[in-house]
Structures are given as structure tokens and as C-alpha cells.
């Protein structure tokens, strides 16, 4: 008999980056790399598990911006071009490394992987959202939503209509993608601010994921700690908090699995290692070296010296680490079951891109873990938050504590010297949007188009990614530009709508560029 639950949650998100005005745009590679290294490997894993009749339950966020990009025709075409180039490069690599017993097997591995990516992408008709939907429809995956553009809610509290718009636009977008309303939401950056659960409730959401201290520091004290969800007082929206022990095993740069010396080294890429003339066709047209995704070395040790990657060794390690993770969860659950006198739930949320993109063997580890849980033990049962709530409808009511899963656990990552200047402008834009909704409650034609675009621009400016990037100090120029461009577009729309002087040509231009959320209704911003 099982004694507790494991709830694995993968958070899939990328900011909306789409630049039709440029033939090649480096930041679009974030998406292409994530597709090749994370999303397709996960889809292939789900396919194998389903084909082998392995029982599993997983939860995954697909943020509305990620869904929009995965469904976008231009980006799909560009991905095909991207993967074709990689297939070509890996084929050349097979030739170049002929006879080399260390590197040629790896060149073959990459060539095969890239070909599999293209096949998978084509099988799902260039839209991977279809793949994830099929696993949700099959009952093994619960897809949850996120803020429309991943706006960080705690710093939007002063303009709650924007929080509402982030949630409502996301829920409506989810419904169009998956044919049903979302039941849960990943609060962007796990940013919870007391009271926002009411806004989630209005959108029909039943639960959200938080960091541990949202619940551990809740008022009153949580009887079961993070090992049972709590309901937010008043709204009865459930909050599932992260288990830090299982998080640390995977995340920690010191004790975490991804640092094992047999695993693939992220920072040694062909794009930087090879002769410039040879690699030139596969890097940026301006000659800027970039990661190609072909990496031939294992972590090896702490120094700069790196040995060639050995796929079998890495695979064995992934299996070993999966066994270790399961063993630790069995012990944890056994202990908690005795302590709590009820079945605990261990909520283990991770950034989806940890699996494959950063930790190359992550998807293998996950597959080993799922298979082991299905066949090698009977103490742990995999579950999704919705299923847990259906089985355990009575839970403690508390007020969770404001929190995030970011640096230091609160809002400092998005509110510091490098990025605090944005809030003055973002909040003003929110106020202006609310003003527009009040002033134009029911319009049609060009004004309606402009109002809808105004909301799109506001939402895009609110992406937490821009403040985050400004905070980390890399790619700052791009993040600043995106924040300003969307705000400038918004401000111009605001002025033009009010003075009835809209420029249709310009509006069409920004509509076709920032083309996400086609069915948006500006009136949700209230």
C-alpha cells in the first residue's frame, strides 16, 4: 500500500521573443534550444512511457508566452531551418571525426538526436502544444497555466487590475489551446501576495504552487507543514508548497545530481571550440560565436581540463541518481507517514529547462525515476494537485505568506537598483489601461483593436524576465529595450486612442509583430 504522494511539477516558460523584422535574431535561439534540448526530449519520454503502459502522473506549466511561440508559424519555420542546420553540422561532424573512437560516437549521437527532433516536430505538425495536449487528454499529464506574460504579481499588487488581466488572459488562452479551463496556475516566480488568491478564484483556478515559506510562515501555523496543501482563507484556493529536501537534491550546485563528473559539460560547445571557418555557417551571420548544442565533453572535475563524454557512463549515473532520489523519497515518505498519521504529498517543482538544456541527462533521469516508481516499489504514488484535492478535499485554511522562489525568497531579484526604475512606468501604464477600459467600455473597429493591442503591450512590458535579466547583469540591453519598447507602444496607443488619432498602418505593424493572444479582450483589465 502506498504511504504518500510525489507531485513532480515542471515549469515551462520563456518570454515572448519574436522578431519578424530580423532574419536572424539571437534571443530567438532561447526557444529553439529549449525545443531541441528540453521540450522534444520530454515529449519523446512521455511517448515511450505511454507506449510501454507505464503508469505516471506529472504536472507541467506551459506559460502562455511559451504556448504562443510554440504555436507560431514564423517561429516554427525558423525552428525547422535551425534544426536542419544542426543536422547538417552534425553530419559533417560524423565525417570530421571519422575514426576517432571518443568523438565519432558522440557526433552520431547528436546527428540522431537532431533527426529525431525534426521528426517529432513534424509529427506534431510543427506545433508541440498538440503533443502536450495529447498527454493531458490521455490523463497522465496535468498542464497548468501561468501569468499571461509571466508578470511578477507581488510587485503588481498596487494595480490589481493588471494581476487580474494576467490571470484572465492566461486562463482564456489556455482554454483555446487545451479545450478546457485550467485548474491550476504556476504563479510567475512562485510570487504569492496575500489576497491574489481571490483573483485566481475569479478565473476558476483551484490551486497554485508556492515556495515552502509561503506555507511554513502562514498564519496560523500549518499543521502538516509543506506536506499537505492549505486553502487560502476566504477564497479556498489551494496552495501546494515546494519540498526543499527533494528540490535540493536536484538543484544544489554542490550536492545536486547535475554536477556529477560523468554528466555532460554545458560550457564546452562546438560553437566556441572549433575553427572559425569551419563553424562559421552554423553561428550567427555576423560571425558571433554561439552555442550550437553540440558538446563533446563531460564535466570531468572542477578544473578546466575536460575529458570526452561517454554516453553510457552518463546514462548509468542517471539511473543511479534516479534510484537514489526514489530511495530518499521512500525514506522521507515513510518517516512523514508515521509523523503526520496521514499520507504526505511531496511537491517537487523544477524549472523545465533544467531537464535537458542545463542538465543534459535530466530527461533520462526523469524517465528512470518514473519507471522505477511504477515498477520497483509501492510506497510512493505519483499524483497531480487536482487528483490530490479530489482525494483530500478537506484541508487547513490559512493565509499564506508573501513569498517567491527567487533569490532570497521574496522580491529583491525583481526590485533592486538595476531594475526598480521600471515600476513607476509599469504602474502608470496599468492605471492608464484601467482608465481606458472605464472610458471605452464598449467599442468596435479600430479603437477596439487599439485597446486590445494596448493590453498586449502592457502585458509584454510586465514580463518578470526583463527585470530578472536586468538584475543578473547579462543581456541587460535587450531587456531594457523590450521594457521600453512595449511601454512606448502602450503610451502612444493611450494618447492616440484618447485623441482619436490612431494610425492604422502603425497599429497593424505592432499587431503583426507582437501577435500573441489573438482573442484578447481588453476589458479584463479592471
Amino acid at each position, binding site marked *: 500500500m502506498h504511504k504518500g504522494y510525489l507531485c513532480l511539477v515542471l515549469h515551462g516558460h520563456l518570454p515572448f521573443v519574436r522578431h519578424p523584422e530580423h532574419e536572424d535574431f539571437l534571443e530567438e535561439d532561447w526557444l529553439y534550444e529549449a525545443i531541441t534540448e528540453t521540450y522534444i526530449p520530454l515529449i519523446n519520454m512521455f511517448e515511450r512511457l505511454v507506449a510501454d503502459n507505464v503508469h505516471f502522473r506529472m504536472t507541467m506549466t506551459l506559460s502562455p508566452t511559451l504556448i504562443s511561440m510554440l504555436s507560431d508559424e514564423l517561429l516554427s519555420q525558423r525552428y525547422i531551418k535551425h534544426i536542419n542546420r544542426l543536422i547538417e553540422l552534425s553530419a559533417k561532424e560524423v565525417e570530421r571525426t571519422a575514426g576517432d573512437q571518443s568523438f565519432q560516437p558522440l557526433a552520431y549521437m547528436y546527428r540522431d538526436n537532431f533527426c529525431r527532433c525534426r521528426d517529432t516536430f513534424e509529427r506534431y505538425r510543427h506545433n508541440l502544444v498538440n503533443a502536450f495536449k495529447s498527454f493531458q487528454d490521455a490523463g497522465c499529464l496535468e498542464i497548468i497555466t501561468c501569468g499571461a506574460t509571466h508578470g511578477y504579481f507581488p510587485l503588481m499588487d498596487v494595480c490589481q487590475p493588471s494581476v487580474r488581466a494576467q490571470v484572465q488572459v492566461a486562463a482564456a488562452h489556455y482554454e483555446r489551446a487545451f479545450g478546457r479551463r485550467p485548474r491550476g496556475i504556476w504563479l510567475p516566480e512562485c510570487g504569492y501576495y496575500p489576497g491574489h488568491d481571490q483573483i485566481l478564484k475569479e478565473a476558476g483556478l483551484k490551486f497554485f504552487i508556492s515556495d515552502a515559506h509561503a506555507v511554513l510562515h502562514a498564519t496560523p501555523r500549518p499543521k502538516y507543514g509543506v506536506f499537505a496543501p492549505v486553502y487560502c482563507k476566504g477564497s479556498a484556493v489551494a496552495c501546494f508548497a515546494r519540498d526543499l529536501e527533494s528540490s535540493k537534491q536536484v538543484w544544489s550546485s554542490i550536492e545536486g545530481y547535475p554536477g556529477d563528473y560523468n554528466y555532460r559539460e554545458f560550457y564546452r560547445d562546438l560553437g566556441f571550440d572549433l575553427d572559425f571557418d569551419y563553424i562559421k555557417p552554423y553561428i550567427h551571420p555576423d560571425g558571433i560565436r554561439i552555442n550550437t548544442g553540440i558538446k563533446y565533453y563531460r564535466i570531468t572535475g572542477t578544473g578546466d581540463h575536460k575529458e570526452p563524454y561517454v554516453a553510457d557512463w552518463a546514462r548509468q549515473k542517471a539511473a543511479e541518481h534516479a534510484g537514489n532520489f526514489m530511495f530518499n523519497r521512500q525514506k522521507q515518505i515513510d518517516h512523514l507517514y508515521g509523523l503526520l498519521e496521514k499520507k504526505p504529498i511531496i511537491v517537487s517543482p523544477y524549472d523545465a529547462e533544467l531537464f535537458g538544456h542545463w542538465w543534459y541527462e535530466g530527461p533520462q533521469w526523469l524517465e528512470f525515476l518514473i519507471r522505477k516508481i511504477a515498477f520497483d516499489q509501492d510506497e510512493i504514488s505519483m499524483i497531480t494537485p487536482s487528483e490530490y484535492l479530489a482525494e483530500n478535499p478537506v484541508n487547513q485554511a490559512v493565509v499564506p*505568506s508573501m513569498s517567491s522562489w527567487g533569490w532570497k525568497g521574496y522580491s529583491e531579484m525583481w526590485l533592486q537598483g538595476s531594475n526598480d526604475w521600471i515600476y513607476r512606468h509599469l504602474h502608470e501604464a496599468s492605471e492608464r489601461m484601467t482608465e481606458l477600459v472605464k472610458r471605452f467600455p464598449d467599442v468596435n473597429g479600430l479603437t477596439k483593436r487599439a485597446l486590445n493591442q494596448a493590453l498586449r503591450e502592457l502585458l509584454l512590458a510586465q514580463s518578470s524576465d526583463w527585470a530578472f535579466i536586468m538584475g543578473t547583469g547579462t543581456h541587460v540591453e535587450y531587456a531594457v529595450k523590450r521594457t521600453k519598447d512595449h511601454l512606448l507602444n502602450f503610451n502612444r496607443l493611450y494618447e492616440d486612442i484618447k485623441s482619436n488619432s490612431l494610425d492604422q498602418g502603425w497599429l497593424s505593424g505592432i499587431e503583426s509583430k507582437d501577435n500573441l493572444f489573438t482573442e484578447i479582450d481588453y476589458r479584463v483589465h479592471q
Partner: protein
Amino acid sequence: MAKPRKVLKKKKAVSKKSPAKKIIKKRPLAKRKKAKPSIKAIASPEIIISQVKFSSVPEAPMPKPKPQDLPAGYARERIVLQVRDPWWLYSYWQVLGSTWDRLKQELGDSFFSAKPTLRVYDVSFINFDGTNAHRFFDIEVTPDARSWYIDTQGPGRSWCVDFGLKLANGKFITILRSNIVSTPLDGPSWLTDEEWMLPDDIFTKLYGLGFGQSSPTGKGWSKKVFFSGAFASGGMGSMSSPVKKKK
């Protein structure tokens, strides 16, 4: 095209003129980290993964920014208060020129010796009316400041901030009053009263189930029939409230 037979660990063949060379130099993580102490200091695993996610390519060559930039301020006069963490708040404000002009007129000479000041009120568990704060403290800000980080040293409390002028005689003149915010606790709550909850929609379903409305054999008994006495027994339990206090 050159076809090197082996993967080169440190390729020296790149022309010095090539823009790529500069980029190569920037690549090793350790070096990048050294160049950005702020990142190193805050490199939690979540940040590392996101750095990798967002920084696997070098800075994009962006077109020159348009001359148009965001305005320095807006027509709305306001002060906004935000929570950074259990101890710190952040506030930004904007005072219009017309307000300064009015104050200059009203205060005369004392305007010029007045200090721009933030008055931070502890308004925990009260309806703040401007006079009933538990306590307050003042922060004198620089004349050109438009925002400030405020160390409250008070997790789990509620706060309101006035931006105003402190006159030489100690009198404080409020110009703007902020929204009220609450800092989160930095540890477990002292409150241990448990309250258990069953959400209304689930309760409604269970309530229906209790009357057999999901019976696979056909339509269930309506509540009306139930309470007609047809099923009456001596010991029907009371329907529990969805929110139940546990002693």
C-alpha cells in the same frame, strides 16, 4: 573549408580582427562571473539555470534605440509603497511642479529650509486615519530623490508612508500618502489555532452525493424528497459547515 580532424581545445587560429575572438574570451563561466560580482554573490541554483536559459548567446547587436524615451514623470501625483521582503520596503513618488509652487507660496521662507522627508507609520491591525499609528519614524531624503528603500526592521507588520516636508521647527507637512502594505513574517506564525476548510464547490458536490444525485442507477433523490421525511431516521447528523473551527 578547413576540416580539422580533432576537436580543438583551444583554437588559436581565429583572426585577431574577428569579432568572435572577443566573444570567446568572455565565455568561460568563471571569468564571466568574476566580471559580474553581483551575479556571483547571488548565484542560487534558480538564478544559475535562468542565466543559462537567457545567456547562452552573447549580447545581440541591437539597432540603436529610438530617440524617443520614456518620460521622466507623469501627470499623476502619487507615492507608491511596495514590499521587498520581511524587512524592507521600496517607495517611489512624484510631486508635480504646481504642488511645489503652492507650498512655496504657503510656507514662504520656511519652505527653503524644509527637508524632504518620508514618515513611515506602523499601522498594523488598525484602520489608519493619519493620527492613530502605533509609532512612526522619519527618513530625511535627498532633495532630488524620487524613490527610497526603507528598512522597517519589522516583519509581519503593516506600513504606510507619507512623503512631506519637515520644517525647521519640527512640523511635518504631508504632501502625499501611500497605499498600505504588510511585510511578511520571517518565521512561523505564533497563531496555532487550526481552521479546516472544504471549498464550497466541492461541498456542493458532496452535498449532492449525499442525496444520491450521482447514483449510476439513475436520478437520485432530490433534497426536497429527502426532507419530506421519506428517509427520516432517528439520527441524521447535522450538515457540517464548510468552515469548521477545531478547538
